[in-house]
């Protein structure tokens, strides 16, 4: 691709045509060399695999897996599941912990980053101490602290901490009541989605109005009413219609609390570890972003009579975002990749399932590694693409 631009550039300077052809030839040779190297590597791998009698290919994904997973977002049973399904379950676990981790880390990180500019000395100190502590201790160690030390401090399964016999907390996890949202009951989450959409529409209308008249619409109250009220209405409506939403309440079993929604310690520890660790880095990025906004902007905002909070929200943060977003994207990618440390604490994420169990049960090392790498690459590229789009919008708004 580059080579194509060579002659055009050479054309600007008369008499340099020969040189550019030589350059073109050199680059073609370089490309050929690279291709030869890639082919050599591929042929070598194929030859070695054949010699070791490993049947290459992804056919193994259809074979019965025969092992159980401690957590799966999709129905998964050792008796019927294939290796492909195990892989998918692992991938979903990775996405779950990374997605929630990104949200939590951003919330904590932005809070801390803004707190670094608080007039309150104690708040500033706490934010600073947090960053120094969490940023400078290896993540692996932090995960172990969350998984081992914090877990052991919780009550034993035989003597759980309980709230109204509906919520239980033990060393084996946090157990919550789980409403069943299948078939008609899906109306409830549907109503929530509707409420969310309506709130977003309201926010848009408010922005448009603010641009026209300088005064927006009230958002918090109506938004909450829409997001919570609509599902509540659906819930009550279903109950009145004679089909109340069944709620599975956790119960005491012979060994553990059983039933309901179980947040297992592996998941919780990984989520807590990833989000608190990454939050420290995000806090620094946010601090740098805010610090990059010229002081005059804040002073001007104050002179206009904006409150501190409004100045931050309307003047400082939009400008800071331009500095914050690119390194923030890197943090999101890092968090996703760090989630593979799940292996250490037994959370069945993609690497745990593929590189640990599937690879060893099937001996398809090349395929397992390829799948795992490709999936991480895809997740990372998708995250980066989404963030870049958002970044482009922020930058464009700034330039207008």
């Amino acid at each position, binding site marked *: 691709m580059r080579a194509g631009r060579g002659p055009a550039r050479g054309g600007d300077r008369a008499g340099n045509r020969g040189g550019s052809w030589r350059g073109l030839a050199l680059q073609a040779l370089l490309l050929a060399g690279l291709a030869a190297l890639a082919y050599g590597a591929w042929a070598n791998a194929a030859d070695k695999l054949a010699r070791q009698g490993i049947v290459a290919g992804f056919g193994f994904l259809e074979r019965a897996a025969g*092992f159980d997973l401690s957590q799966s977002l999709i129905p998964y049973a050792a008796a019927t599941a294939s290796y492909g399904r195990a892989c998918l379950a692992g991938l979903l676990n990775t996405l779950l912990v990374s997605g929630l981790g990104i949200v939590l880390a951003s919330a904590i990180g932005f809070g801390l980053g803004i707190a670094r500019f608080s007039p309150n000395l104690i708040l500033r100190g706490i934010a600073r101490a947090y960053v120094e502590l969490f940023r400078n201790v290896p993540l692996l160690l932090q995960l172990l602290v969350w998984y081992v030390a914090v877990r052991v401090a919780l009550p034993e399964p035989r003597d759980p901490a309980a709230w109204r016999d509906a919520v239980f907390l033990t060393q084996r996890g946090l157990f919550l009541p789980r409403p069943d949202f299948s078939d008609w009951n899906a109306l409830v989450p549907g109503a929530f989605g509707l409420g969310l959409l309506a709130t977003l529409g309201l926010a848009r209308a408010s922005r448009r109005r603010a641009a026209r008249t300088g005064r927006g619409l009230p958002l918090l109250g109506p938004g909450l009413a829409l997001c919570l009220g609509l599902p509540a209405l659906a819930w009550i409506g279903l109950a009145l219609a004679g089909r109340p939403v069944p709620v599975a309440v956790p119960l005491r079993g012979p060994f553990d609390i059983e039933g309901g929604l179980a947040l297992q310690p592996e998941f919780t520890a990984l989520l807590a570890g990833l989000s608190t660790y990454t939050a420290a880095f995000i806090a620094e990025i946010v601090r740098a972003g805010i610090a990059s906004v010229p002081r005059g902007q804040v002073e001007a905002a104050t002179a206009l009579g904006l409150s501190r909070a409004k100045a931050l929200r309307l003047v400082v943060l939009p400008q800071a975002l331009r500095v914050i977003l690119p390194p923030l994207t890197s943090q999101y990618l890092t968090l996703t990749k760090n989630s593979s440390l799940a292996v250490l604490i037994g959370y069945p994420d993609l690497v745990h399932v593929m590189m640990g169990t599937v690879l060893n049960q099937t001996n398809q090392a090349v395929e397992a590694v390829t799948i795992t790498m490709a999936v991480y690459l895809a997740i990372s590229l998708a995250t980066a693409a989404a963030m870049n789009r958002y970044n482009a919008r922020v930058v464009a708004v700034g330039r207008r």
Partner: protein
Amino acid sequence: MRPDPDAATPAGGARAARGLAAALLAALLLAALLAAAFPATPARAEGLLGEIRARGHLTCGSSPGVAGFGVPDSKGEWRGLDIDFCRALAAAIFDDPGKVRFVPLAAPARFTALQSGEIDVLARNTTWTLARDTSAKLNFPAINFYDGQGFLVRKDRGIAHVEGLDRATICLQQGTTTELNLADWFRTRGLTYKVVAFATAEETGRAYDSGRCDAYSTDKSSLYGERLKMAEPEAHAVLPETISKEPFSPVVRQGDDQWRDIVAWTHYAMLDAEEAGIGQENVEAMRRDALSPDVRRILGLEGKYGEALGLTNDWAYRIIRHVGNYGEAYARNLGDGTPLKIPRGLNALWNKGGLQYGPPIR
């Protein structure tokens, strides 16, 4: 702006870039040539035995730490039944049990290490299954330990049998036959369980000991060792049932029958020596004045059995002198004199009620 006058002009910059590209190209071509000239695996004329001899030592894949089978002691010396097996191989080849390098391998890495040629033999309580035997062109020459899957539980939970673990949480090591057996066993009995799988035995044991699970399941032989690692070993017990067959065998790559024979017969020589009553203590005396033809054949005084294997005729004598017979290796690593105290059980000789049966050396 820049001090370099050549690079200051655009033409100079282009020239520098071309020079760089040429250098890069030359390096790439060289790399490609080298890759073509030296295939990753050199062609084997003499087989693995010749390679090992030329290298001067045996490379043995061992367990990263299973008490009694392969674990470094306080001085950093590897100890265990599988370790002794590799030392016996080294003794048979080099007359020196020290000429062996151990590569500790976690369960998920072991077969890849063998397939890629990183190790010559894998001696690491590995269960022989049909899938492993066929899917990856591996061979399991001889069963050197008969084991089965068991459960470690806390005594104070009052669980006497495996059936009592219905609805329990069980910790285990991933990528093992353990997790497959467990799923089958509970399913066929209509019982349920929750599983938490970890990558290594250490993490599994730590999680169980800290109360994450009600039971720790793995091969029984390992459970005895794992029990000793708990904060209070006395508070834990191994359940009586065995829910699977776990025949452990050293593993070699397919395609080298000579090496496979050497690995198999090293184990058989240790069994035959025990059966014939030849041990480390009396091997010199036996070699001097044994009359029994069995003993004379084992010790290489009659026949050319060692040479038939590609070794020297005193190969078994070397093994016994340096490492001892199977019973001695067992007693040293797993027997009553050790903290593990694993009964011989299935691993007694065939004429003592066990399954260990060495084909005759003749």
